[in-house]
Structures are given as structure tokens and as C-alpha cells.
């Protein structure tokens, strides 16, 4: 590894000043992507590192006027264990609970997962179905961007140089909603999605689907929503047949690649299955059934 400069700011403002002063500097929080990528030879460690893992006030998980506010430094472990997240933003708890291993979850952060922008990231599809907004700050100001507009492609975001993710705001689902995230995995731990799907289902008083959102993992250059699947669900009764029909519609959004973890044909075949499971669990949760977190362990699992 190169011999670089390590800076450890004491405040967000100081971090933003350092980012502005040192072009090309990289932020490091848990290091689970940055350092591992270096160890794997995918990239060299940036010349200047701004270590933010100890910045105060950025690891909160709280409800703020009906919206879930999560600090960029909240760890996957803290999110997974949060009763608040489990009760109303359940798909995000499903996803956070299966990131990496216990060691990954204890140091890896939500902000880091978003900024790393892997198409196979676990927390992206849940945040997409909830319509999360990401807050970005720089030394010259602050802005908010829909999470879907944060991702520009594999490993790339629309964040400008000098901008840092400080928090994520996740709107509350309507009453009568349930959500779930399910992935296809080859092993239980130290895995990322071969394909994955998040679903948010809102049931009306008549038991029909009043609203639905479906997002897919690892079948496109970024996390993508499937409007065809959402359209198919709206107004239907969430029967097995209706859910299967909606899941069969996800192919509008799926254009997977072939890589070492699966061929495009395999991913296309499996994303429909995984979407069917996610929608089914979201619908059961919407109806009041207590399906344990993480959902992926309750379906087709090895346990």
C-alpha cells in the first residue's frame, strides 16, 4: 500500500474543509469497501484519507416527524437491531441484517454502502422502495437528492467532489403497509446479492393493494424500480397468482450481466423468483403477520 496522508477531522465542518482542500481525498468510515478493495488489488489506496469514523452526531437512528432519519455513520448492526427500523421500515432491517458478517456490520456504515454504489448493495433496494432522500454536504452548502438519483452506475455516484453523505431521510410508509428484502445468496455470510428484490405493499381497507413498489438488486448498472411489477400489483388482491404475475413483470427493469457469480440468463430467471418471495412477504407483513427479520432466512433458506 502507498504511504499517504491520514487526516482525522473532529467535526463535519472540518471534514468538509479538508475535502475541499485535498482534491482526490477519499472518505473512510468502516473501511470495509475502501480497504478491502485495495487488498484485492481493485484499486490503490487514495493518497489522502479523511477518516470520519469518529465524527460525533452522525450515527443517529431516529424518527423525526414521521420520517426516519439515519446518520451516514450508523452501522448496519445498529440499523438491524433498531426496533424503530424493524417495525416500520422492515425491508431495511432485512437488508442490514445480511450485509457481510457480524464484523462487517459492526464497522460498515449506511453512508459507506450508498457511496460505494455497488449494483449488488443490500440497502439500496429497500431505500428505493421507501423513496429515501440522501443529504449531501460540502464546504459550500447542502442539498438533498432522491436515492435513485444518487447512483450513476457501478461504483459511481452523482455526488460532486468535496461532497459527503451526512444522512438519509426515509419517509414513513402509509398505514397498512409491509415491506421486505430478499436476496439470492450462495452462502449465508460474507455474501452480496446474486440478485435481490425489495417490495413495499400497502393494503387498502378492502384488502386490495392500494400501492406497491418493487426495486431490484444486481440486475442493472444501479438498483432499479420495476414499474411494470408495481402496476401489476396495484388494485389486485395479493393472492399467490397475483403476486406471481407481478413478479413475472419485473423483466422490464432487469438487464443483468454475466459475471463470476451468475450468468445473465440465470439472474433473469432468478430475479423473478426472488421478487415473488419479497412481494409475498411484504404482503403478509402488510396484513399483520409477523415474519421474522431477516426475511431472506425464512424462504428457500438453508436453515
Amino acid at each position: 500500500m502507498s504511504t499517504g496522508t491520514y487526516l482525522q477531522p473532529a467535526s463535519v465542518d472540518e471534514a468538509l474543509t479538508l475535502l475541499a482542500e485535498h482534491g482526490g481525498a477519499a472518505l473512510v468510515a468502516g473501511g470495509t469497501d475502501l480497504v478491502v478493495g485495495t487488498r484485492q488489488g481493485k484499486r490503490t489506496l487514495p493518497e489522502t484519507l479523511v477518516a470520519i469514523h469518529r465524527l460525533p452526531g452522525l450515527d443517529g437512528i431516529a424518527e423525526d416527524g414521521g420520517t426516519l432519519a439515519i446518520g451516514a455513520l450508523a452501522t448496519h448492526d445498529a440499523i438491524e437491531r433498531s426496533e424503530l427500523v424493524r417495525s416500520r421500515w422492515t425491508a431495511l432491517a432485512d437488508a442490514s441484517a445480511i450485509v457481510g458478517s457480524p464484523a462487517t456490520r459492526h464497522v460498515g456504515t449506511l453512508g459507506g454502502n450508498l457511496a460505494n454504489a455497488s449494483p449488488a448493495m443490500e440497502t439500496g433496494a429497500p431505500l428505493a422502495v421507501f423513496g429515501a432522500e440522501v443529504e449531501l454536504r460540502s464546504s459550500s452548502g447542502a442539498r438533498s437528492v432522491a436515492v435513485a438519483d444518487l447512483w450513476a452506475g457501478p461504483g459511481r455516484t452523482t455526488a460532486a467532489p468535496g461532497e459527503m453523505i451526512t444522512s438519509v431521510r426515509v419517509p414513513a410508509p402509509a398505514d397498512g403497509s409491509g415491506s421486505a428484502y430478499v436476496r439470492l445468496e450462495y452462502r449465508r455470510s460474507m455474501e452480496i446479492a446474486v440478485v435481490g428484490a425489495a417490495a413495499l405493499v400497502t393494503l387498502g381497507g378492502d384488502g386490495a393493494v392500494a400501492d406497491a413498489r418493487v426495486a431490484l438488486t444486481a440486475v442493472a448498472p444501479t438498483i432499479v424500480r420495476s414499474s411494470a411489477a408495481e402496476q401489476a400489483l396495484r388494485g389486485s388482491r395479493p393472492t399467490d397468482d397475483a403476486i406471481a404475475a407481478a413478479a413475472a413483470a419485473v423483466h422490464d427493469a432487469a438487464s443483468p450481466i454475466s459475471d463470476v457469480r451468475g450468468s445473465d440468463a440465470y439472474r433473469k430467471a432468478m430475479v423473478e423468483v426472488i421478487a415473488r418471495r419479497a412481494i409475498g412477504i411484504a404482503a403478509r407483513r402488510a396484513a399483520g403477520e409477523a415474519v421474522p427479520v431477516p426475511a431472506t432466512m425464512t424462504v428457500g433458506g438453508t436453515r
Partner: protein
Amino acid sequence: MSHACTLNVNGMSYPLQLDAGRTLLTVLRGELGLTGAKEGCDDSECGACMVLVDGRPVNSCSYLALQADGREITTVEGLAKNGELHPLQAAFLDEGGVQCGFCTPGMLISAEALLRQNPKPSEDEVRLALGGNLCRCTGYQKIAKAVLAAAQGATA
């Protein structure tokens, strides 16, 4: 450029000058001579390098040493006290949870992290807590049994 930092490892304080890119594992093994934590995959896949940082399990092969400045680090060498094996170490021996031994330090550290947080885990919880630790010898059965035995001993 090197940076001053202090690593607190197993109750000892070590002032060091370190380059930014050094991982915690290379410093523990190189500068401090603590060779219990192992380099298996060097990729955060196998867990042989597991140590505790402020009580939480961390893959030290992929963690910058400077990020651990001032924090409490526990390696496998810190488990035994006054020449007495830690209950987990004794249970691994009693239950046959050790074969070649390469994964054992990481297994012990992950198990210790679990028991500090959850003193009476179920077998499922044990298996999840050890999910980031690979063993190529034992098939895991005796390791899981040893962790459960240590937990029972501690609460009996």
C-alpha cells in the same frame, strides 16, 4: 508520511509511528509481535484475522491501524488471564473444536464478541455470529458445541 498513534492492545499501551495504509493486522503481527491473529485470505472473507476493537469484532486485515488509535483492542493473546485459559479456549479443547488451529484465534474472538453481547445464545445465534469465520477442518459442529458449552459453563 508516518503518523503518531497509540494502540491499546490487551491492556498494554503501544506508542507507534505508522504509515496511513498500514492495516491493523500487519502492525499487530509485525511491530507488536502478536501473531495470534492470522492472515488467511487478506480479503475479509475468512475471519482468521479477527480482533475486538472496543469490544466489537473487526477483520484486522482490512482495517486501517490508524483508525484504531486510542481504542481498546483485544487479540486472542488477551483472552487467557494469569496463565488460566479463557472458558472459550478450555471449551474448544474439551469439545475438540480445534484441528489445524489456523482459524481458532478468529473463532475464539468472534465467539467472545457474541458472549459479551449475548451470554446465553441459541445454536442459531452462535452459527450466525461465527458466519464470517471459515474453518476448513472441523465442519463447524464441534466449534458451535464448544461455544454453547462455554456459555453454559459461564451461567451454570
